[in-house]
């Protein structure tokens, strides 16, 4: 789908999730320290929903970090029909299949663009 939109969504949510998770961990530590100092179980009662919320945030963050955005590269294969010599390189503007591409450096035969294709690679979040 529209890669720009995915990137935008990712940019928007990544710092929010990180900050939220850090804050929740900080609150959790604060509650734990208070409980250890006072022995008051109210801190534990508050800690339970905070743990669940922190776990959910961590899950959402990990899902976001696992997002892979496809990046496409375009290549052409130039081949000599006579001797089979071939080279693969990135496409140039105006390329099309079976376009003549000069002389073969090995046998002086005619070079043709025999393949034009797209290769997909996946890029991570960071």
């Amino acid at each position: 789908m529209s890669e720009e939109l995915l990137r935008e969504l990712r940019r928007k949510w990544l710092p929010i999730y990180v900050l939220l998770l850090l804050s929740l961990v900080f609150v959790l530590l604060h509650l734990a320290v208070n409980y250890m100092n006072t022995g008051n179980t109210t801190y534990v009662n508050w800690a339970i929903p905070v743990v669940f919320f922190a776990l959910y945030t961590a899950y959402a963050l990990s899902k976001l970090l696992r997002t892979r955005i496809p990046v496409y590269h375009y290549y052409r294969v130039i081949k000599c029909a006579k001797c089979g010599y071939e080279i693969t390189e990135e496409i140039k503007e105006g390329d099309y299949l079976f376009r003549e591409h000069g002389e073969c450096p090995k046998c002086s035969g005619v070079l043709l663009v025999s393949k034009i294709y797209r290769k997909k690679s996946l890029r991570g979040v960071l």
Partner: protein
Amino acid sequence: MDQGSFLDAIIWFVMLTILFYLNREIEIMRLVSEIERYLRLYKATRDKALNATLSGFKALVARQEKGKVDVKKLEDKVNALIEFALIIPVSLDPYGIVRKLKHLLLSSEEALKDELRRLAPKATDAEIENLLNMLGATRLLNQIYKAVDHIYRIGRKFKSIWILMQLNAQLPFVTEEVRALEGAVEAFSKGLPIGDSVGPIVAAKLLHEYNALKVIEPVEHTVVGGFEFEGREVIVIKAKGPGGSTGRIDDALRWVLNRYKADVNAIITVDAALKLEGEESGMVVEGFGVAMGGLGVERFNIEKIATEYGIPLYAVLIKMSEEEAFSVVDEKLYDSVDKAISIIKRTIEDRIPEGGRVIVIGVGNTVGVYP
């Protein structure tokens, strides 16, 4: 044991009703948010395609008019072209519907091309065809976005969970189509071959492999070439490239049959076909009939011509997803092209007698494929 009062029962009943109501409301909220997410993606894709189409026009016009481009006028024109409607002929009396449809398609295509030529008078035929295809893909993306948005708004307006659920169930299929069209805009803007071009690639590869030097254009946007293979004459028909065109295959077939007085032993069509989710991309399948998609006008005519002269119809299909069919061709599909060629050769050897004649038609969009 305390059985509870009548009031308790009433409270329990009211709570249950509220719970049911809330459950339905939450479900509507969930559906609305999911559909809105899809709609945002469709809108972004439509806008991206529109920008790419506009950039294509601007670049072409700027190149010809040396930088002097009336951007506002151009944008208005492109926006108007994206909104144009094609009204399918009335089919209450189906007699002659195919001819009417063909006339409508050809005349609308010509009118659009003329419009584009007026905008960019010095553009080549290939550039005009690629722009026309980009415009077509953008127009479809616009229509999809508007149609989904319409159903969503109706569903929300009447708070109809059923309309929203039906729309939500359709969205994965719609998204497949949107992805495919997004890939098409990119491919046509660069003028590179797409998955649907496998038919023309097979035809062009055969012509190159057997040095069919004399390739003619007897019918507009369609080329015909011939060569000899194992004592049989092979006539190849394909749309004329490297512009994005599907040609006028039926008219070219009629021309070839008239020229050879219908002395043809078989017609073999090669085309891309949509794979099912469990099938592998690039799978090559043999069959009988005409391998050809679209509205069915050309397929109807080819079937009619073949029936008229009693010529057997063989088909070779290369399976791929909708996204692959409209995006720049994948490397592994070239292996399928070779497989399809070997199947065609085997079919000719097995089913066509020596001294016979066969027509091979490379069906599909020939963008980025020469000749």
